[in-house]
């Protein structure tokens, strides 16, 4: 079940739309923040709160890449490897994360500290290669500064 704060947040979101169904995407964001990822429990909570079938909630959520379908590390690395980032060395960064942190694309580090998701363009092409760690942009990455940046995320 949702916390009362989360219920209140979803109810406020609902007022922005003419029907409850339209609040589904924002409600899923609330759910993954509350539950850490979109577990069965999270789907049921969203479904009950909005009066939408659980199967519909899950069907919609699994369409979108940014809803978490499994437990994640404490910090989420979203690294872009699309063309602009690839031209400037994003693949080397993927290799570096593999050797240095044991991170496979889509995987989680063994200490549970990081998850890695490969992204399809995060709009930082002029400062490529780039990544998001949680909500923060990090740009002009090299192996060296990538390591320095990640050290800040305990």
């Amino acid at each position, binding site marked *: 079940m949702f916390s009362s704060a989360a219920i209140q947040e979803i109810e406020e979101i609902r007022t922005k739309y003419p029907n409850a169904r*339209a609040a589904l*995407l924002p409600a899923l964001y609330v759910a993954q923040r509350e539950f850490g990822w979109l577990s069965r429990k999270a789907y049921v909570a969203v479904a009950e709160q909005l009066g939408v079938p659980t199967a519909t909630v899950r069907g919609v959520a699994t369409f979108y890449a*940014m809803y978490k379908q499994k437990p994640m590390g404490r910090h989420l690395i979203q690294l872009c490897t*699309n063309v*602009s980032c690839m031209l*400037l060395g994003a693949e080397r960064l993927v290799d570096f994360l593999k050797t240095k942190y044991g991170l496979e694309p889509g995987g989680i580090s063994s200490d549970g500290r990081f998850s890695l998701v490969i992204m399809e*363009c*995060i709009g930082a*092409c002029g400062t490529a290669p780039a990544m998001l760690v949680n909500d923060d942009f990090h740009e002009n990455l090299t192996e060296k500064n990538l390591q320095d940046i990640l050290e800040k995320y305990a």
Partner: protein
Amino acid sequence: METILLKNIQNPNSADITEYKKAGGYASIRKALGMEPQQVIDEVKKAGLRGRGGAGFPVAMKWTFASADPKFPKYLLCNADEGEPGTFKDRPILEKNPHLLIEGMVISGHALKAEYGYIYLRGEYPAAKHILNAAIKQAYDNNLLGENILGKGITFHLSVHQGAGAYICGEETALIESLEGDKGQPRIKPPFPVNVGVFSKPTVVNNVETLSNLPYIIAVGGEAYAKIGTPDCPGPKIFCVSGHVEKPGVYELPMGTRLKDIIYTHCGGIKGGKKLKAVIPGGISTPVLPPDKIDCAMDFVNMPKNGSMLGSGAVIVMDESVCLVKVCHRALKFFEHESCGKCSPCREGTGWLRAILGRIENGEGMEGDIDTMLAVSANMLGKTFCPLGDGAASVVQNFIKHFRPEFEEHIRAKKCVVNG
């Protein structure tokens, strides 16, 4: 040229309403709300403003269709789902100049007699979400959004709707589906969103950059605005340049600036003095150009004549060290990942093209692979619900058209012929 869209963004507090007003912001709202909605549409028509999302559709025409529909309420949606790879032109507006967009949306809302607006923001821009929400709150607090704006009896409500990482939601009917709480799969057209859009009501979907032109058009008038750029495509354009140039970044220049000048004059030429090999001029979906085709005006009319498209104005520059088989393969991986799965030519076609390009890149290409790719592409082009499939097919067709020998050598040598 004075900057209009990226005005004042060097100011570290540019996203704050006080700074925006200090720089002359929100003067156009007052002027526009004193005009009849039709007068606003007429000014936009005189300005010749075209949509900046990629299609270049005349804005006044779209507005006229929605305005003429008798159904109410009407909705104004801002497409901030900037996902076309290579594109980062809307991000500075969203993060640094949010009040310009809000002002543009209130003006547009008035023109359309729309009382509700949503900014559909891509999930990959978390900072922009916070900045926009703070700016919207400031606008409400200053009676620039909400009921009876500036005492003019006009209502416009605005909120941010965050996407969740689906490129396809940049397509306007997919965006509408997503806003309604569904999978972002495009709708068949007609009916068009101007008649049956979000919540089955008349809906205008305009790009961030498009809407951000409105305050200036109202300030100086359509005729003065139309003097910027080219007669067929007036106004300023934000070009975003990435890849192998000395100074990548965003450049606000008149529409019709030549591609060659963007690369060599504004961006300082090819990085490290290397040789230019290829340019993708308008985001990854637009046809690639070889170096002898870059002396061309960047606008919606001249780029198609030159064999490509303006797209989002996202210029990706590649030097001589780049393996184009690899670039094409990466592009198709993207399209396969982002195909929504609704129609089979796109769902199957992107997968097969990716697979063939993958085996060529891995040194397992076979004789006939190029023709197979051309046949698959031909079976996608014009046969899909939305332009994603067309984009994927034309990427392959144009890489082969301009760089076929490199693909052939790759297949014959069974390895990369550029980087060994």
